[in-house]
C-alpha cells in the first residue's frame, strides 16, 4: 500500500507543508519536536482537519479538501498507537483489545486475538484493568488494540517516548515483528535516530514543517541536512555469527566484521546496526596496538565540510556506506581526499544496544 500525503496547514507561527508518496513498509516521520510530525500523523488519522490536503491510502480517499471530502476518523480504519497508550480505564485489557473489533466491518478480517496476545506476551494481563499495568505493558496492549481493529494501516506517535530505556528495548521488537510478521503498513513518528535505524523502510525527515529528506534510513540518517550534523549516522546490515563468552557478539557486514556488546538476536539472523558518525575515528594506515576491535577498511567517496570545525567523511566499505564526523583540521592534517583508502575505527561499546535491531527491512517492499 502506498500512502499519498499532501498536507498544508497553518498554525500561528508555523506552517506544515508536505507532499510525498510513501512506498509500502514502515515509514518513519523523523524530526525534532515542533517539526510537524504529530500534526501530519493526526491529519492521516482524521483527528486534525488540515487547511488544504489530499490523503489517500492507495485508492482509498481519506481527505480531499479540493473535493470537500473529509472522512471522519471512525471510518478511516486506522490503528493508532498513541504516545501515552490511551487505554480505556473502565474496561479490562481484553475489552480494550476487542474494542475496535466491535466496529470493524463484517468483511474485514481482523487479526486473531490469541495470535496477537501471544505475539505481544500479554496473556497474563487479559482480565486486569489498565490502571494496574506498567508503562511497557500498557504500550503492548495499545499495540494489540490497534492491530485487532482490522486496520488498513498502523499509526504510531512516538510510542516509546514515555518509556525508559529498558521498556523501550522491550517494546521495539514488537514493532519489528509487526513489520516482519504482520506486514501491515506502518506510519511511525519518532525523534530517535536509533528507532529510525531499526524500524524504517523509508524515512521522511521533517524540519520546521517541511520535508528535509526522504529515502531509506542509511541514506537519510547520513544526510546532514536531514538530521543535523551531530546526529549523522550510518546503518549497516549485519548477520550475527556468534556470541562469545566474553560478552561480545560477532557479526559480519558488507563492510567487514564487527564485534559489538552482546546483541539479543540469535546467530544467523540479520540485524541492523546504527553507528553514529561522531563515534567513528579515521586512520590513513591500518592502526596497530589499538584497543578498538572494529577496524573497517574503505574508500573515501565524499568529504563534506560543515559550518563549524567539523567535516563529514563518507567511506565506501564494500557495498555499505560509513560516515565519520571528524574535524576539518584532521582532514587537512591527514590529507584526506576522495578515492583514498582509509580505515574507520569503531569502538565496540560505542554502539548502543537500542541501536541494534532485527533487520528484515527490505522484506516489506519486496
Amino acid at each position: 500500500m502506498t500512502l499519498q500525503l499532501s498536507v498544508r496547514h497553518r498554525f500561528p507561527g508555523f506552517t506544515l507543508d508536505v507532499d510525498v508518496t510513501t512506498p509500502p513498509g514502515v515509514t518513519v516521520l523523523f524530526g525534532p519536536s515542533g517539526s510537524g510530525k504529530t500534526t501530519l500523523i493526526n491529519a492521516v488519522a482524521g483527528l486534525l482537519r488540515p487547511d488544504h490536503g489530499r490523503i489517500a491510502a492507495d485508492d482509498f480517499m481519506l481527505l480531499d479538501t479540493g473535493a470537500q471530502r473529509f472522512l471522519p476518523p471512525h471510518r478511516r480504519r486506522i490503528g493508532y498507537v498513541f504516545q501515552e497508550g490511551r487505554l480505556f480505564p473502565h474496561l479490562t485489557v481484553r475489552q480494550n483489545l476487542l474494542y475496535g473489533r466491535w466496529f470493524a466491518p463484517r468483511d474485514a478480517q481482523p487479526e486473531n486475538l490469541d495470535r496477537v496476545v501471544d505475539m505481544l506476551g500479554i496473556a497474563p494481563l487479559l482480565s486486569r484493568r489498565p490502571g494496574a499495568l506498567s508503562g511497557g505493558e500498557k504500550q503492548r496492549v495499545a499495540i494489540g488494540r490497534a492491530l485487532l481493529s482490522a486496520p488498513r494501516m498502523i499509526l504510531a506517535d512516538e510510542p516509546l517516548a514515555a518509556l525508559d530505556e529498558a521498556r523501550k528495548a522491550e517494546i521495539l521488537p514488537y514493532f519489528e515483528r509487526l513489520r516482519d510478521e504482520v506486514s501491515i503498513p506502518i506510519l511511525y513518528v519518532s525523534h530517535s535516530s536509533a528507532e529510525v535505524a531499526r524500524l524504517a523502510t523509508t524515512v521522511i525527515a521533517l524540519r520546521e514543517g517541511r520535508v528535509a529528506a526522504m529515502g531509506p534510513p542509511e541514506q537519510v540518517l547520513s544526510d546532514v541536512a536531514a538530521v543535523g550534523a551531530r546526529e549523522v549516522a550510518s546503518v549497516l546490515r549485519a548477520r550475527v555469527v556468534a556470541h562469545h563468552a566474553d560478552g561480545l557478539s560477532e557479526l559480519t557486514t558488507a563492510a567487514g566484521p564487527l564485534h559489538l556488546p552482546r546483541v539479543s538476536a540469535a546467530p544467523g539472523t540479520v540485524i541492523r546496526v546504527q553507528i553514529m558518525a561522531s563515534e567513528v575515528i579515521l586512520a590513513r594506515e591500518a592502526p596497530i596496538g589499538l584497543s578498538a576491535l572494529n577496524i573497517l577498511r574503505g574508500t573515501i567517496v565524499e568529504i563534506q565540510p560543515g559550518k563549524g570545525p567539523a567535516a563529514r567523511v563518507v567511506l565506501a566499505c564494500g557495498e555499505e556506506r560509513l560516515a565519520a564526523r571528524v574535524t576539518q583540521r584532521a582532514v587537512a592534517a591527514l590529507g584526506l581526499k576522495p578515492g583514498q583508502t582509509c580505515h574507520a575505527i569503531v569502538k565496540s561499546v560505542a554502539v548502543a544496544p537500542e541501536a541494534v535491531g532485527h533487520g528484515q527491512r527490505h522484506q516489506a517492499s519486496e
Partner: protein
Amino acid sequence: MWSDWANWLGPAEWQAVRLSIRVSFWATLASLPLGIFVAYVLARWEFPGKQVLNGIVHLPLILPPVVTGYLLLIVLGRRGYVGQFLDQWFGIVFSFRWTGAAVAAAVMAFPLMVRAIRLAIEAVDPKLEAAASTLGASRMWVFLTITLPLILPGIIAGAILAFAKAIGEFGATITFVSNIPGQTQIIPSAIYAFLQVPGGQEAASRLVIIAIVIAMAALLLSEFVARRVARLVAGS
C-alpha cells in the same frame, strides 16, 4: 413495627411524603437525559451564546423561586404560551397536577444536576474519546461506550443531588401548582399548611424530621454510590 411507623404519621402527612417521593423521583428521572445533554454541550461544545445557555440553566438557582414558579405558570399554565397548545393538541395539563409539581421540581433542581455532570464530563480526557474514534467508534458510540461510563459517578451524584433538591422544593411549586392535598401538596407545602392551622406544629415537626432524614439519606447514598462507581470505573 412498620405499622407503628405508619401510624406515627397521619394519613395527610403520609400522602405528602408519598407524593413528594413520587414527584422528586419522576422530576429527576425525566430531566436526567436533558441534563446529561446540556452538561455535555456546556462542557464540550464551543458556540456563540454558550454563556447565555449557561445563564439560563443556572437562572433557577439565583432567581426567587416564586419568580420561577410564576414563569412556569405563564408558559406551561393551562392558558400559558405553551401550555394551551399542550392542552389542545395532546391533552397534557400541568397546572394543579402532580406532574406540574414534578416539572417545577425538575426546573429548580436542573442547575445542580447539570453542574455535577458537567464537572464529570470535563474530567474525562478527550484524548480517550479520540482514541475510541480511531478504533472505529462513531460519535454516538464513543459517548455511549467511553464518555458515559466514565461520567457515571457524576451522573449518579447529580441525580441524587437533584432528587434531594426536588424534595425540598417549595416556592416554585406552590406558585405553579398551588397546595392541593393529594394532588400537589408535597412535604414542604404540607409543613407550611400545617403551620397555618392551630395545633399543626406536631404534624409539621414530624414532616420536618422526615425531610431531614430523606435529605441526609440522599446525600450519604450519593457519596457511597459515587465512590463505588468511581472505583469500578477507575478500575485499579
